[in-house]
């Protein structure tokens, strides 16, 4: 009871403080004319029509109206957040997003030109280690395909009007954009599923541990030539994983809010969700551009783990030396091909196979 009384008293006290604070501000403002002292009876109406332009404390005094039309927020006459959202999409997300994505691709091009392909230091060996099981590869490629589809269809909706519409024409572009929207909606929830599966499978190996900071400080061994040991996943891969879980999770959750307009969410929540969805998606796409580069043309031997499931022993020594050492100790290293020796001795049948 005592606590309740205190709470009851706190609110009027706060209100009183706000009320006495306002005239103080008003007096500081220079004014050369006397305000109209007679209140306009219509002002209350127009305040209620557009309460978002008022300070939050005052806006609370003007709740929305009522309408015979049943629907979420049908009593709201003016939703000013719409203009804010318009500014976000047209004035912020479009230009910033294009700079970010173009910047990411340019950065990778520069990295490739300066650093070149990351080669295995001692060349490929004739031994291999199992890196990803069939299930791990399956969920990776499941997520990859879903992500790329959602990424491209989302980019069509974001940049299509400025990039594709002028030369495709309205009818053709509309068909493409419609397919992009329907596909984005249809396959969107699969990304959430992929995210959960990937999280459950890979989370333990992605917990940060001792040595990760050293890896970061040494630039992952990519910039310099020195050996930077790491475990199954190095610091960069772990960061990608957590970015994927957190940023990707934001994309998925905000996407669900946008996809199912049946939970009674209003425009304000959907606008906010779109802001989160847009920023997170553009950031994630930029990160994934880097991931795709270093996983394919950027590094010798990197793709094999995700395609065949096995990686080269020397590649593992270069990039995951602690894990490679553990595999050697546990006797998990195996020859690359059963017929490898035969292959070298008899080049003729190998050529015939081709």
């Amino acid at each position, binding site marked *: 009871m005592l606590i309740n009384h205190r709470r009851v008293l706190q609110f009027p006290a706060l209100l009183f403080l706000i009320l006495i604070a306002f005239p103080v501000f008003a007096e500081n403002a220079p004014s050369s004319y006397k305000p109209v002292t007679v209140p306009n009876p219509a002002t209350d109406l127009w305040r*209620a029509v557009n309460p978002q332009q008022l300070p939050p404390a005052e806006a609370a005094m003007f709740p929305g109206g*009522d*309408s015979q039309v049943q629907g979420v927020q049908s009593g709201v006459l003016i*939703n000013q957040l719409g203009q804010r*959202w318009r500014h976000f999409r*047209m004035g912020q997300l479009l230009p910033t997003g294009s700079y970010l994505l173009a910047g990411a691709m340019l950065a990778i091009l520069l990295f490739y030109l300066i650093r070149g392909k990351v080669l295995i230091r001692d060349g490929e060996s004739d031994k291999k280690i199992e890196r990803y099981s069939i299930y791990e590869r399956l969920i990776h490629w499941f997520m990859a395909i879903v992500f790329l589809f959602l990424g491209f269809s989302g980019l069509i909706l974001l940049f299509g009007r400025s990039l594709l519409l002028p030369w495709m024409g309205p009818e053709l572009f509309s068909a493409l954009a419609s397919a992009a*929207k329907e596909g984005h909606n249809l396959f969107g929830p699969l990304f959430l599923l992929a995210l959960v599966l990937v999280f459950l499978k890979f989370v333990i190996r992605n917990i940060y541990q001792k040595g990760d900071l050293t890896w970061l400080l040494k630039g992952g061994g990519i910039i310099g030539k020195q050996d930077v040991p790491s475990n199954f996943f190095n610091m960069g891969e772990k960061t990608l994983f957590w970015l994927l879980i957190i940023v990707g999770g934001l994309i998925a959750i905000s996407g669900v809010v946008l996809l199912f307009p049946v939970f009674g969410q209003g425009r304000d929540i959907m606008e906010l969700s779109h802001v989160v969805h847009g920023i997170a998606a553009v950031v994630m796409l930029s990160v994934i551009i880097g991931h795709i580069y270093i996983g394919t043309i950027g590094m010798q031997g990197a793709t094999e783990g995700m395609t065949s499931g096995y990686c080269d022993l020397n590649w593992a020594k270069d990039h995951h030396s602690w894990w490679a050492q553990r595999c050697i100790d546990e006797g998990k290293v195996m020859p690359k091909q059963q017929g490898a020796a035969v292959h070298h001795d008899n080049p003729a049948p190998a050529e015939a196979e081709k």
Partner: protein
Amino acid sequence: MARMKFYCDAERCIECNGCVTACKNENDVPWGVNRRRVVTIKDGEAGERSLSVACMHCSDAPCAAVCPVNCFYTTDDGLVLHDKDICIGCGYCFYACPFGAPQFPEDGAFASRGKMDKCTFCAGGPEEDNSAEERRKYGSNRLAEGKLPLCAEMCATKALLAGDASVISDIYRKRVVNRGASVLDWGVSYENASLRSSKGVQGKATMEE
């Protein structure tokens, strides 16, 4: 060139929803779609006012700005119309519109959005005027017949005005002057308007006639 506008006089609207009914009937609007609605502020309290709202045919329309497929166009009469053959039903116009004008029929699974539908100022769409195709997609095209939107034509108290912006504003200006600008604290609406004849100001509004 005329610039078509709606204006709803809050001092006259009595929340009869006649405009809503007229619109639904005239345009064969599907279930769940309301091109026009009446919103009442302070319902049941002192100072209650109602406003009828639909697409306001903005000069700088937010819906047209954010549309990813650019399906909106502005007619010579200043109306913001859209092409349902191009619309993909993404809902962006609904996020951007301040008035809640764009409506979406439920289409397919999980209440996903169909093609957007909104007030056309009874001016149809890009199809040939008064063609069956236009009627099916957008409803009535009264403007092509030289008529104004039915919501305003049906308004019993003439609260909802539709037509050329300069004409509408002239009508409303006369009303305000006759009524007594409420800034002078003569109250609003009919209650105090009758007092004004004795103050010799009435002539101002009626001089032209």
